[in-house]
């Protein structure tokens, strides 16, 4: 589904990603974890076309896509839920969801998907005509995920879905992610919350200082000394 090879990104003279390779197979949940500043958000923004890569290759669904505009990648059925959610606060919940379907024009399908999202996150139905800016943090996260689903993505990119949310809400969000996986969606999650990520993902990559320090099946990584070393940056010494 997604194949990233030797991806390099720099902001001015600072390199954020120094040549990383990641594979995500169809139907998989893959997590990228790492400490603050490891380059996790940069990775997702680069895949989604917001940040330009300095080198390397991104292949999505059989197409080389690096350098393509974000709106084009949405049309190719890739959706990003960015860090901080970025819902359109001055617009209603309904308008936010409708915007998620910008690239589609199958009215019946859009109506069905709206219904699906509202069934998944019933709280959005209660607030459907209200301003999205009035939602709580957890509700905004659900709206951001719902909005992304409205484009009927093949690949969902999630940036820190648990950030700043109460544990109960985090559980709800991850239950939704599992449900989506059951329906065949491919998900790439970036997380700082290690336990959440390892519990949710089939495979996990550890990103540190712009490099992949370790990768493998989540069950194999959990609690090993090598994993701790990779995560906390001792692997380089």
């Amino acid at each position, binding site marked *: 589904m997604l194949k990233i090879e030797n991806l390099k990104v720099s902001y001015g003279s600072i390199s954020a990603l120094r040549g990383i390779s990641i594979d995500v197979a169809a139907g998989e949940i893959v997590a990228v974890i790492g400490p603050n500043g490891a380059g996790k958000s940069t990775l997702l923004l680069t895949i989604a076309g917001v940040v330009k890569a300095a080198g390397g290759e991104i292949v999505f669904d059989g197409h080389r896509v690096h350098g393509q505009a974000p709106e084009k990648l949405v049309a190719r059925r890739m959706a990003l839920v960015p860090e901080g959610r970025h819902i359109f606060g*001055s617009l209603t919940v309904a308008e936010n969801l409708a915007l998620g379907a910008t690239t589609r024009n199958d009215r019946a399908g859009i109506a069905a998907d709206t219904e699906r999202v509202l069934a998944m996150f019933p709280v959005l139905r209660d607030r459907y005509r209200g301003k999205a800016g009035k939602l709580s943090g957890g509700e905004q996260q659900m709206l951001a995920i719902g909005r992304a689903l409205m484009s009927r993505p093949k690949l969902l990119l999630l940036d820190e879905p648990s950030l700043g949310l109460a544990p109960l809400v985090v559980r709800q969000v991850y239950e939704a992610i599992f449900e989506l996986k059951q329906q065949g969606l491919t998900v790439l999650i970036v997380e700082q919350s290690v336990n959440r990520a390892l519990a949710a993902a089939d495979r996990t990559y550890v990103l540190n200082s712009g490099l992949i320090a370790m990768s493998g099946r989540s069950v194999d990584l959990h609690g090993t000394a090598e994993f701790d070393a990779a995560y906390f940056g001792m692997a380089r010494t």
Partner: protein
Amino acid sequence: MIALQNAIDAISLGAVYALAALGIGLIFSIMRLINFAHGELIMLGGFTLYALAGQPYLVMGLAAIIVVAIAALGMERVAFRPLRRANPATLLIASFAVSYLVQHIVLLVFGSRPMGVDFLAQLGQSIEFGGLRVPGLQLAAIIITLVLLTALALFFRHAPTGVQMRAAAEDFTMARLVGVRANRVIAAAFAISGVLASFVSLFLVAQTGSVSYKMGISMVLIAFVASVIGGMGSLIGAALGGFLVGLVSVSLQAYLPVDLRPYRDAFVFLAFIAFLLWRPQGIMFRRADRERV
């Protein structure tokens, strides 16, 4: 009765200012560009009327609307699209460059003297309402502005492109991340801004009966002030700001001592400096310094 007469003057002047301010505010809200070349769009509308003088008024008017909308699209394509990722200061300077370029091309072709144009001159005649004399043009300005504002409000609320433009104005990068085509919404914003500018040209030419290469300058300045007063980035604010500037101008014209009336504009701007010292964010506050990618 005089107060009512003044109120009608204020609303009709404010209506035209509101249209001009909306044209500037719309582009700013989406692109963080303060487009000083908006005045030249107004001027090009005037010269379209001049070029087609003698044709039926409807033909002149429609041609002006179309020409200005196309000119606005052209400006975006040639000058502003290549600079989209530049910082707002660069965009501002570019808009000055476009403004001077267009002014001087028109100066080269048509010369510097104002030229008379007959466009809806009979609208200058007043209509009597029980002792109240309302020039037809003022009435037309008020009605047409209300129609345009209503149409615009409906467009932003219900049309998919309108909703996309509101989303883009709030968070441009995120709008692209849900699939909003950047080029398309920005072009749409420029086209609408051009249509608004063309109506300002129609009012100006109908009122003054003349065109000159400098006719857009004072209008764009007032429109800019109005959109700042309203709160940069807020469209409702821009419209309110326009009406407010109209109200203050007409009030000062009516109630300043006669000796001071020639300096009315100085007092207008003084009033708005005071206003901004009191409320620097404008009437409708909206965070306008967000990152734009």
